[in-house]
C-alpha cells in the first residue's frame, strides 16, 4: 500500500509540474481564451500513461539500446496522440504547441529516468565495493521535493504580471495539491529510511512498524488539515488580487482586471448561447454586501465541519492502537486518570451511556408507560411491576432480571425477596 501511494505521488509530481506549463506559455500570447487555458491544463495530464510506460521500460529493459528504442517508440506514440487529441479539442494555433510540449516532455522524462537508473546502478556497485566516496544525488523529476513549490510560485507571479487570473488560480491549486502530496511522500520516505537504517544497519529488534506508520499517518493527516486551513485566507483574498500586464510595455496593450472581465463578458465563450442570452438581459445588478458575508460564513462553516469531522475520524481510527498487544509483543495500556478511564470519561461527556444507565433508562420508561403515578423511592422492582400490572408479562420478567442485576449488583433471589 505504501509503495503504491509513493508511485502515485511520483507520477502526480511530474503531472503537476508539467500540466501548468502549457497554460503558462499560452497566456503569454496576445490573444487568449479562458476555456483554452483550462483545456490545455487538462490535456497536460495525458502525459500520465506515457510516463508509466517509460518507468516500466526503465525497470524492464536490461540493455541501453532496448531502453532507448522503447522510449523512442513511446515518444512517437505520445506525439501521435497529441496530434489526434489536438485535432479534437484544440484550435489550430495551439495544436503544434501541444505536440511539441508532449515531445519535449517525453524527452525530458526519458533522459531523467535514464539518469536515475544509471545512478541506481552506480549506487549498487558502490555498495558492493564499499566505496565510501560515493554520494547520493537528487533528481528533480524522480520524486517530489519541497523546493518545487517555488515553480508554482514563479508561475503565479508571472501570471499575475500577465493579468491571467485563470493561470493564477491553477498555480495556487497546483501549489496546494503539491504541498499536500510532498508532505505525505516525505513522511513515507523518511520514515521508511529511518526504519530501514534501524533494521538493516543497526539491527534493532522489535520495531513496531505498524504502530509507527499508523500513528504517524494520522499525525501527518492532522498536519495537512492545519495546512488546508492556511488556504482559507488565500481564497478570501482572491477578488483583491492586483493584476498587471507587462505586455503593454512591449505592445502598448492596456489591460485591467475589469477590462478582462468585460472583454470576456462581451465576447463570451465563442458561441456559448447561455452567455449571449444573459448579456441580452441587460446590466447585472450588484449583490448586497451581506451576501458576501453569508458566503464567507458558509465557506468557514464548511471548512470547520470538514475539519471537525476529520479530527473525529482520526481520533476514532487511532483507537486501534489504544490497547492490547502490539506486533512487537509489547503490552499497550491506556493510562487511567483517577478511577475512571479516559475513554469512559469522554463517553459520558459526549452523551454516550454505559450499559447500566441504558438498562435503568429502559426500565424507567417501561414502568412509566404502564403506570401513571411516579413510583416511590422505597418500592422494590417487584412492587413497581405489580402496581404497573406487568409483573407476569415476558417483557416485564426479562427487564426485571436485568434491572435487579444493575440495581443490586447480584442476581435476583426470589427466596430472599419472599423473606423480606
Amino acid at each position, binding site marked *: 500500500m505504501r509503495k503504491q501511494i509513493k508511485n502515485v505521488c511520483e507520477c502526480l509530481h511530474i503531472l503537476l509540474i508539467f500540466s501548468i506549463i502549457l497554460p503558462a506559455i499560452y497566456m503569454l500570447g496576445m490573444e487568449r481564451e479562458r476555456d483554452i487555458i483550462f483545456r490545455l491544463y487538462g490535456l497536460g495530464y495525458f502525459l500520465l500513461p506515457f510516463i508509466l510506460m517509460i518507468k516500466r521500460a526503465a525497470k524492464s529493459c536490461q540493455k541501453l539500446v532496448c531502453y532507448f528504442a522503447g522510449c523512442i517508440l513511446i515518444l512517437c506514440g505520445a506525439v501521435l496522440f497529441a496530434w489526434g487529441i489536438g485535432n479534437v479539442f484544440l484550435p489550430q494555433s495551439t495544436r503544434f504547441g501541444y505536440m511539441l510540449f508532449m515531445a519535449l516532455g517525453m524527452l525530458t522524462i526519458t533522459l531523467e529516468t535514464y539518469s536515475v537508473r544509471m545512478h541506481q546502478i552506480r549506487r549498487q556497485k558502490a555498495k558492493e565495493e564499499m566505496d565510501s566516496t560515493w554520494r547520493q544525488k537528487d533528481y528533480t523529476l524522480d520524486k517530489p521535493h519541497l523546493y518545487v513549490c517555488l515553480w508554482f510560485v514563479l508561475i503565479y507571479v508571472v501570471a499575475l504580471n500577465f493579468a491571467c487570473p485563470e493561470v493564477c488560480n491553477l498555480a495556487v491549486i497546483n501549489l496546494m495539491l503539491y504541498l499536500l502530496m510532498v508532505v505525505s511522500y516525505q513522511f513515507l520516505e523518511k520514515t521508511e529510511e529511518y526504519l530501514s537504517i534501524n533494521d538493516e544497519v543497526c539491527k*534493532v*529488534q522489535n*520495531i513496531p512498524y505498524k504502530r509507527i506508520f499508523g500513528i504517524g499517518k494520522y*499525525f501527518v493527516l492532522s*498536519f495537512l488539515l492545519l*495546512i488546508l486551513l*492556511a*488556504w482559507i485566507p*488565500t481564497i478570501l483574498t482572491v477578488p483583491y488580487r492586483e493584476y498587471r500586464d507587462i505586455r503593454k510595455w512591449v505592445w502598448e496593450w492596456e489591460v485591467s482586471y475589469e477590462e478582462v472581465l468585460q472583454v470576456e463578458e462581451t465576447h463570451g465563450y465563442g458561441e456559448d448561447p447561455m452567455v449571449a442570452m444573459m448579456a441580452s438581459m441587460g446590466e447585472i445588478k450588484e449583490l448586497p454586501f451581506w451576501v458576501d458575508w453569508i458566503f464567507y460564513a458558509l465557506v468557514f462553516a464548511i471548512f470547520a465541519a470538514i475539519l471537525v469531522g476529520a479530527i473525529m475520524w482520526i481520533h476514532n481510527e487511532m483507537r486501534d492502537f489504544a490497547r492490547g498487544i502490539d506486533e512487537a509483543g509489547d503490552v499497550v495500556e491506556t493510562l487511567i486518570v483517577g478511577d475512571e478511564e479516559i475513554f469512559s470519561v469522554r463517553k459520558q461527556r459526549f452523551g454516550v451511556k454505559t450499559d447500566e444507565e441504558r438498562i435503568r433508562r429502559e426500565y424507567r420508561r417501561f414502568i412509566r408507560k404502564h403506570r401513571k403515578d411516579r413510583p416511590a423511592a422505597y418500592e422494590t422492582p417487584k412492587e413497581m411491576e405489580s402496581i404497573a400490572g406487568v409483573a407476569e408479562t415476558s417483557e416485564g420478567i426479562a427487564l426485571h432480571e436485568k434491572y435487579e442485576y444493575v440495581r443490586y449488583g447480584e442476581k435476583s433471589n426470589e427466596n430472599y425477596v419472599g423473606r423480606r
Partner: protein
Amino acid sequence: MIIILLISIVVCMAAWQIGYFLLWKKEFFVTLSFGQPYVYAGEDAELIEVVENHKKLPVSPVEIGFRMRKGILFKDMENASVSDFVYKRDIFSLLGNQRIIRKLNVQCQKRGRYEIKEVSISTFSLLHERKYSMEQQTDTRLYVYAKRTDVTAILRAVENLLGERESKRKYLEDPFLFAAIRNYTIQDPMKNINWKASAKTGELMVNTYASLENEKMMLYLDVEDRGILKKEHLIEDSISVAASLFQKLLAKGIEVGICMNLKAGNRENENRESKKQEQTSFFAFQPSRKRETRILLEQKLAEEWEEKEVLPFEKLMECSFGDAIPVIISKNFSEKKKQQIEEFIGSGTKGIWVIPYEKGEMPQIASDRFTVVKREVDEV
C-alpha cells in the same frame, strides 16, 4: 495573494514544529527495572521497560537508549552494541495517555553489580529533519551472584573432618537443645527418662539432647592474581566455590564465616559486625548462622575490585579461625605457601585447602595438617 498563502503555510509549519518541540517531553516518563533483585551467573533475568506518555499529544517514533556494564547479554543482541559498555536502543510509538511495557530477556554471564542510572530519550520531527533528545535519571540494579558450582568433594572432606572431631571431643549435652526420644539403655541416667512417653509406649523411653559444641567453618578466600599470566577463570572458580560452599554449609545449619584478602570498602551494605569485630583492613565475617551475612557476602563477591584493593595472602593469616575448621581456597600453590598454611593451621586441628588449577598443571601438594581438594577448571 500567494504571499499570504506562503506566510500562512510557514506559520502553520513553524507552529507545529515549535509546539511539538516544547510539548513532547512534558509528562513523558521512562522507567527501567529488573524483574528480580538478584540472579546467579549463567541464569536468565528480565529487564522491564515502561514508557509512559501522560498527555494527549502522541509521541512517535521515540528511541530509548541506555548502557550497562559488559557481562549481560540481551537475547536479541543485534540492537545492542558492545564496546566498553553494552549500549541498547529500542524504538516505540505512543499515542496520548498511553503506556507501553516491554520485557527483555537477558542472560547474566558474569557476576557483578549491573546498574542503569540514565536513560536517553529521543524523538523526531514530523519529516525526520530534526532530532529532539532528553535524558532522564533512573536507578535500577541487578546483582549477579557468583555461579553455583559443584562442591560435593569439598563437603565430603568437610564431613570427614567433622567426623574425626566428633570422636575426639568430649561429649557435652545441652539440656536446652532437645534432640529426640529413644529407648532406655543401661548407660542412660534415670533423670533423662521421659515418663509420659514411657507410659504411652509401655517401655522406658529417654530424652536425648544435642551437643553443646556446634560445628563451625571458616573460609579463607584468596583472590590474589599477581602473576604475569592472569588466570581470571581460576579466580572466578575460587569465588564460585566460596559462595557455593557458604550457601551449602549455612543450609546444613553449620556456622560459617569468611575472610577475603580484599580491602574492606566504605559501602552501605557492609556488615556492621565486620566493622565492629575486625579492626582489620580486610573483608571478613566471623562464623554465624545469619542469612543476612550470606546476602552481604554475595553482594560483596558481585562487586568488581581493582588490583590495588587485593591484599597479599599473608594478610589472611591474621584472621584467626578459633575453633572453626579452616577451609582455604586459593589457586596460588607453592611449597612456601604450603608451609605457611601448615603453620597457620597448627598441630591441634586439621583444615582443607581447595586448589583450582588449569589442565596440565595439577598441583602436587600433600600434608597431614590439611586435606587437599583439587579442582580442574577449563579456561573459558
